[in-house]
């Protein structure tokens, strides 16, 4: 099927011998015959497949349901070995679908899936102190813990991490999420979002734009900003209420 621009949600997983990219794509209900490698992006090799689900939230009018009322969509698993450790970046347009499939996969294994979640303090510190390159923080969200009536406060701008307002909040708020502008391909920049639970998401205009998400993951891995967890980042989602 042809790629449709959509918002994609992703999680980062530890790879092991019992968890290959192909197995992951099959766990995401991709048809075996439809699993194909796509053009590698940087140090990440990428596999893609097509899954069919009942819902279609795409803004595109080109999406067409099959005879069973299912809509096809592309899912990706990118692989990289960084500093000697293998990783999978798993991306799907439907976050509930992703959560459901990964939960099912986790339940079927003797050992839990290992996800990675960022230390958002470290990520903030990284983007505050490094020169903007092709990844630059353009919005930060902090969880207000010492101010009644407020929960999340977001600051956006050229560099919100260096703003006086952000520093005034240090004692009463904790880093929660970040939006990073990625400019790895010569089209529109891609806004990559990540929260401290390990959820990553962005609007992908093309398959190639996945490089921005992968490059952001590489930065977090290389700089030691990630911690392993067996609690799925997708736990944050409210209860399953979809038939995806």
């Amino acid at each position, binding site marked *: 099927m042809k790629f449709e621009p959509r918002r994609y949600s992703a999680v980062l997983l530890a790879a092991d011998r019992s968890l290959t990219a192909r197995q992951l794509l099959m766990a995401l209900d991709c048809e075996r015959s439809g699993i194909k490698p796509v053009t590698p992006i940087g140090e990440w090799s990428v596999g893609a497949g097509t899954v069919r689900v009942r819902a279609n939230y795409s803004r595109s009018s080109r999406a067409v349901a099959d005879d069973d009322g299912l809509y096809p969509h592309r899912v990706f698993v990118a692989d990289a070995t960084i500093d000697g450790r293998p990783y999978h970046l798993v991306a799907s347009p439907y976050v509930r679908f992703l959560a459901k499939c990964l939960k099912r996969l986790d339940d079927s294994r003797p050992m839990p899936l290992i996800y990675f979640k960022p230390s958002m303090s470290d990520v903030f510190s990284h983007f505050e102190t490094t020169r903007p390159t092709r990844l630059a923080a353009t919005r930060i969200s902090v969880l207000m813990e010492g*101010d009644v009536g407020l*929960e999340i406060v977001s600051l956006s701008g050229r560099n919100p991490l260096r703003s006086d307002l952000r520093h005034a909040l240090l*004692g*009463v708020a904790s880093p929660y999420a970040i939006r990073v502008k990625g400019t790895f391909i010569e089209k529109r920049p891609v806004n990559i979002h990540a929260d401290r639970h390990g959820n990553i998401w962005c609007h992908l205009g093309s398959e190639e734009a996945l490089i921005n998400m992968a490059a952001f993951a590489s930065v977090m891995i290389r700089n030691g900003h990630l911690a392993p967890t067996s*609690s799925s980042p997708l736990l944050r989602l409210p209860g399953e209420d979809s038939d995806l």
Partner: protein
Amino acid sequence: MHLVDAASTELVDATARVSAVYPLANEADAPLPSSGYLVFLFPRSAQTVLSKLTRHVGEGIAVFASHGLASVILVVTGGPDSETDADGAERTRIDDLLDLVDGDLCAAEIWPFEGETVLETQTTVRHWSPASAPATFEDVEASDLPYEVRTEVEQFNLNFQYFWARAYKYCDEYEDLAAWLQETVSDIARTVAAYARADTDPASLDNPQQHYGLVSLLVEINACLTMLNSQAVGVTPPLTQSSFPVGEYSLLGIGSAARAAWRIYRHMSDIFANAQHLDRLHAMRHGAPFDSGVVPYRFNPASWESSPLSIETQPPGADPSPPRRHIVYFSSRWGFHQTIQSVSLSWQCINGNAATDWNLLTLSHEFLHSHLRELLDELLLVQDDAELAALVEAYNSGEPTTWSIAAKQFLLQRLRWIDHGLQLIAARDTAEQNGQSHVEIVRSAPMTAEEAHHLLRDRLRFLEEVIVHVMDYIYFYDADDELFVSSLWHSWALVPNVQPKIDEYVLRTLLALASTWRSHDETQAFDDASARLDSCLASILDAGDHGLVGLARSVLDEGETNVSGSGRTDLRTRFGMAFPLVRWTKQFLISSELHAKLAHDELRVAGERAYPIDPWEFPDSRIESPTGFLLDRFRRMTRAYENDRLESDSLWQLLVLI
């Protein structure tokens, strides 16, 4: 020894010992197998061990949880199924299971059984070394102390040895309590040794009252420590040789419930100690006054905002004092209660903390009383006539010269107004009975020592309650009206003394809610707070009948409509007299940084469900803010009679915290 697998914890015969255990998965509800092993695990962290074992339920292994220090129990079906490993050593399935949680255990006790009989000669206990060498404590020297002190200190030494010998093995998070107890009793012993010897007759002392005050502190420490010895460390391996003297927990005890209570208390205690509010308040004492003072008998809260000094703005010292601890235990006699040395929780919380009526977060209220007492002691503590005279002189001195004198004047003036309000109401009642329409109370402008003594003795409690309610509402309930009101009024429903003084309880709630009102207009503050309280009380009543809440609502309605100001429930008048105290607390004693530290938890999620875990799920990392977690749980609680998994959910709430 025989095993009896029963649906309830009722004693099957007089010699039986019982404890309820709860399966991690519903399918583990099956009866005991015909033969196998009971493996009692004593975890360092129940949450970690249960998180790791969750996926091993099934395949002949059932996992249960209990309130005891042995909080995890494995039922392994069949024989040992041993095999030989690469080194030639024989290994069993139990070895494999223990390996999974190796490093997370203090001890494991293994009971093989056949039919209903435990093969007692084959039971084994394994211990794992503590992560670090245990602290060592010397006995407190008592030999040359007067009899009434010596006996208490000697009793303490024995109680303490019993406590620490077990706590360091099975719950070493009590180490700082142990250090604090040892230091406190040593201090008392040294104090007594400075003025008395073994043959001193207490009647001959200069100040026998002070002497017996010290004795009473020792008596209380011993009483509470024996309670803790029983509850926290009373049941340790071998289980066959120890028991807990409360029938329904007599087999395994309630050690893990006690550990959870300690974890909640310790979180509060550590955060408050690190914030150094007492030190900050002490450092502020010579600073500029925040107001021009009692002349002409009115403070000006609008001017306080320009005051540069407050607990928040005063920088902390370089060397924080260690936390001042309390002994924390469950009590069916005291319920939620605090004293100088202890904080107790309602016994019913062990089995019912997942219901609104027995919310563990109520502990915050008791904790705040002890925190506030330290702060008020800094400003108002009077130990003799000379100190009382100095306090009165500060009040009568006119324009204050320091922050501390302004605070003393303000607090004494608030006490005076609180007293005035109560006297006015009493005088109105009398006048009404006598058919009079006018009441006047005249008070001399300078305060006398007698009046100050009366205010500190009889009215300080109400002032404390107002400040504690404001702190509780902001720090622990995130100024969430519905949760705060629901928690307060569900817990008060179970206290017999509330109904006769219900107007006072309504007033306290109103004043707490008014702490988020930004303007200084007390009339508007009252209108706003009463509308919000009425809405919250109506929500509780919508969920079901609640006698006390219905009564509170009628008191509130009466107070609202009775604007002319007569009658015992004239809430407006009393609210107006106490409202400046709320403003003062908010301006000078509340710290948003401390609030943030209490709530901080990387597990916390933005949105309605702050902790996205349900009963019997265990995250793979520690809950950093037990109070934040409990608040989130309270949001999702139901009344006790509406929750048919109350006991099970309550146990989970305890174990997930330790």
